[in-house]
């Protein structure tokens, strides 16, 4: 298991929390993003995620490096799942440890925002009456994803 990775299997969040835990850490924030059934009145049956895997893993690692720079002492592990995911499945996990809790909270939110900006991963929503790659925001509202 890698610290920054794209996976095709179910995610166990605890593994990533364990990766960042160390004696200096007084706080670990663990964020899991899940597949949501309803988005602004449109019912999703399931999601299909695709990634440019080698670049996506590099960009996840870049986010980890950005966090270390902005919140010295913070350590990060991130995994994103691709393939077909069912409602409530974990799509992404972000674990951040830091000496004190404020940095762990802030850095964790920073990580998900950056994922949505720079990491080459795409989500296709499959509805009862069709499907669409999200990103062009045609039918779907603002990117309020997870």
């Amino acid at each position: 298991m890698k610290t920054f990775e794209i996976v095709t299997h179910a995610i166990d969040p605890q593994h990533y929390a364990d990766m960042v835990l160390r004696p200096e850490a007084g706080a670990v924030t663990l964020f899991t993003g899940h597949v949501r059934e309803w988005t602004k009145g449109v019912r999703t049956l399931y999601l299909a995620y695709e990634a440019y895997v080698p670049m996506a893993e590099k960009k996840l690692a870049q986010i980890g490096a950005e966090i270390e720079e902005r919140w010295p002492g913070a350590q990060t592990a991130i995994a994103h799942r691709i393939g077909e995911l069912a409602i409530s499945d974990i799509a992404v996990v972000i674990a951040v440890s830091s000496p004190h809790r404020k940095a762990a909270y802030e850095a964790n939110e920073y990580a998900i925002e950056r994922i949505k900006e720079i990491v080459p991963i795409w989500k296709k929503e499959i509805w009862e009456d069709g499907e669409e790659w999200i990103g062009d925001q045609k039918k779907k509202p603002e990117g309020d994803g997870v």
Partner: protein
Amino acid sequence: MITVHYFAGLKEVTGVSQEQANLSGYTVQQLAQWAAEKYPGIDAGAARIAVNEEYALPEDRLQPGDVAAFIPPVSGG
């Protein structure tokens, strides 16, 4: 030769996930124009282009063996 990757909605327009093309010496901007001519339905303007797994600038020039990728707006998370 240059390898060109397409993802997500762009892949559905091109019908291929990757291809080889003789684009050495092209700038990234010229690569986008080439794709837009080859695949009229492609919205190359909305995509960012990566070269060797890093976002590239329009003026960057492709070298033999480079791997380029059209990155449509991302939607992870």
